[in-house]
């Protein structure tokens, strides 16, 4: 394993397999880089920009940049963490996020990132967009107020479920999720509770009806461990991972 190529992340060596991105290699080596729209099972696209890192001063998204031997990557710096805090504030500001009443509280990646990065204030004037919910489906609620436009449900439905239940429409600040039915309502799509798309929402948009708050707040995923620790447990490990 010692012959694997390496790059430097914040001054420490990270080994990687050819083809791995900076983020994949870092997570596999037990090194955390904050991220939101990245999910190990899907092709990264780099839209949330939380994983922004610098290679000799050049800014890149760690989730889309292939690792190369000898790269010197900076991630855990004050400037980059300040950038991430600002991006989290922006995501909170553009949607309608009310953590105390949200079913996803404690399981929410956006909330967990806010805690972990030390986001202490709103920072920006909130936009309070008007985004009606879609409660048409008997078993599923879509609460678009919380959407962070990560496209994970779009990718999961298309790539895993082979259904394309979700897509994006509009542009700029008006960009929004749409569902695949003539009526535009979820009830008229072919989504099922067993779909991959049901599992991947990092916030609280895609909600199963009648099972809310089954796990009490305080005992949920990121209540137990901060996301920086949890994300490392979730990372796919190479078979020959060194201890």
């Amino acid at each position, binding site marked *: 394993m010692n012959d694997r190529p390496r790059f430097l992340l914040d001054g420490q060596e990270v080994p990687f397999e050819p083809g791995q991105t900076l983020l994949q290699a870092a997570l596999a080596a037990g090194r955390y880089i904050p991220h939101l729209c990245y999910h190990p099972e899907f092709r990264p*696209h*780099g*839209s*949330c*920009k*939380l994983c*922004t890192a610098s290679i000799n001063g050049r*800014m890149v*998204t760690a989730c*889309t940049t292939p690792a190369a031997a000898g790269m010197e990557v900076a991630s855990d710096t004050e*400037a*980059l963490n300040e*950038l991430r805090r*600002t*991006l989290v504030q*922006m*995501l909170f*500001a*553009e949607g309608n996020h009310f953590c105390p009443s949200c079913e996803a509280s404690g399981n929410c990646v956006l909330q967990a990132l806010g805690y972990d990065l030390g986001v202490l204030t709103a920072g*920006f*004037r909130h*936009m309070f967009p008007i985004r009606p919910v879609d409660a048409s489906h008997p078993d599923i609620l879509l609460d678009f107020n919380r959407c962070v*436009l990560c496209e994970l449900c779009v990718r999961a439905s298309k790539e895993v479920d082979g259904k*394309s*239940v*979700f*897509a*994006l*429409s*509009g*542009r*700029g*600040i*008006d*960009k929004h999720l*749409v*569902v*695949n*039915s*003539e009526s535009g309502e979820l009830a008229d799509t072919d989504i099922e509770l067993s779909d991959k798309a049901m599992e991947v929402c990092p916030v609280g948009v895609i909600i199963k009806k009648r099972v809310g708050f089954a796990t009490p707040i305080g005992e949920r995923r990121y209540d137990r461990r901060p996301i920086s620790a949890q994300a490392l447990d979730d990372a796919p490990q190479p078979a020959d991972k060194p201890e």
Partner: protein
Amino acid sequence: MAKDTAAHWATPETSRQVAEVLERWDNDPTHLVQVLREVQEHCGWLPPAALTTVARRLKLPLAAVRGVAGFYAFLYTEPAGAYQVLFSDNVTDRMQGSEALMEAFCRQLWAEPGKVSEDGLVRVDRSACTGLCDQGPGLLVNGRAIPNASSRRLDLIRELILERRPLDAWPVELFEIVDNIRRPGILLGSNVRPGEGLRAAFERGAAMEHEQAANERSWREGIPDDAREPLAMLREIERSGLRGRGGAGFTTAAKWSACRASPADLRYVVCNADEGEPGTFKDRVLLASHADLVFEGMTVAAWCVGAREGLVYLRGEYRYLLRPLEATLEQRRAAGLLGRNILGRRGFDFDIRIHVGAGSYVCGEESALLESLEGKRGIPRNRPPYPVTAGYRGRPTVVNNVETFCAATLVAARGGEWFRGIGTPHSAGSKILSVAGDCARPGLYEYPFGISVQEVLEDCGAERTLAVQISGPSGHCIDASEFRRRIAFEDLPTAGAFTVFDDSRDMFEVARNYTEFFAHESCGFCTPCRVATSMLRGIMGKIHGGRGSLHELEQMSRLHPVLQMSAHCGLGHTACNPVLDTLKRFRPAYERRLQALRFAPDFDLDAALASARRATGRDDAGAHLETGNE
């Protein structure tokens, strides 16, 4: 109303037209944007039933089709009125009075901006710069460009609309757009004949000694005779020092060589005619009056890299150029300059198709342009891979600006040495400037690179000039202390916009117009650009409304590094430039608007109580906040 339009859509006539459109585009999902645009030309908008038919026939999810339709400003998924009248909203249009004209026009038609009138007749709205800055304000009526909006011309337009006269029967002089070439140079004054550049390129190849390049990669499988000949032309481009005219200034020879060197079964040449940078209109004139130079440059590029197919991405605002351009393509085919065995060269086959955009500035970014050409939402791609290795349909693709292809034709015809002799050592050749704003003679000025801003200002008859916006909102704003600077890649690089502001102008309002532009055009893919451009627009609006404080200035300077560090493409990187440039040079224009040094809320609590006062019939002092009168 909804029923009426659904019934309208259901006529056999329209469903036949939709079927024809789909047929014409081979039922190919990668032509979705073209299909939607043409369906809309028949139906006036994109009715749900039409989208369903399109989705079914192209075997695409309906949600994906809606997603594409919802991305482009000129595609309407709701009834858009029998007449859509869009007022170009560049800062030069505003300086020419567009806002007052639009207000009066709306008032006379009882129309509210952005909404279809109750009788379904008309919808009036704003649109990003239409490229008519030298003869503005510009209009788009049902997609057709109309220059020189004035109350007299708008009176006529209103009458034509009220009598529901079809656009084809409107007086032709309404649509007359002039070139305004004020200072021709090597491109605008070119007398290169169609085919001259290509013939010169072939002769160069023939003269080259064959064994010299014996170990080079084959130009195209199966045509060994031609394998190395294009290298001579490629070297000529290299010798010329030609760099891209779209703004980034990438070396053209390097781009073409990289495309040629990428192994592939097919390669493409794409002409970026999505001239969206506000204040730029040179490509409009090149396409209108020098289309042969453009197409010949594309053909020379195809010869150099081994491409069989070329595409022009024509911005939707220039839809009126489509027919003349297609006529030119037809002439070139008839003359043997396009098609099979071009000019008798066995195996050199190349042809050009034109795609028309549908209202999106970000599609001028080359990888977003490729996405749009493939029928998708115009989102810039992650790079690498770059288009030269994986571009259109994943094949190696050369993407160049209209002006770059024109210059390449000149290099082919006149030689690289000649071209390099013009301009400066780092910036060979000429640059066409789109001069507009406060000057006596707006129009196109072509200079050798290295011309100073001051000289341009003198030539165009600008007086009492306060500032010049070089290369549009994504470029830079300079003041009088910098007018000695030169137009060149090494000093003031530009895609061509040269917008002049005299000392009567309020530079805060200029910057506010540009922040509105960026917010409107952000594709929304990445967090920083999607949110920050919208925040910038909101903050500038708040200051404009007299409720700004130092807090707002601090917020804006906080957004800039976020955009610089993390935005996905150039739109986001530069979105804060107009504010920072003007704040640095014209700070009083901001400060005199600030209400307080500390924070002032935008929300007016006393005004919000008005409905409660109305409901209770009270208007005494006790029904007002004490702070309300401050």
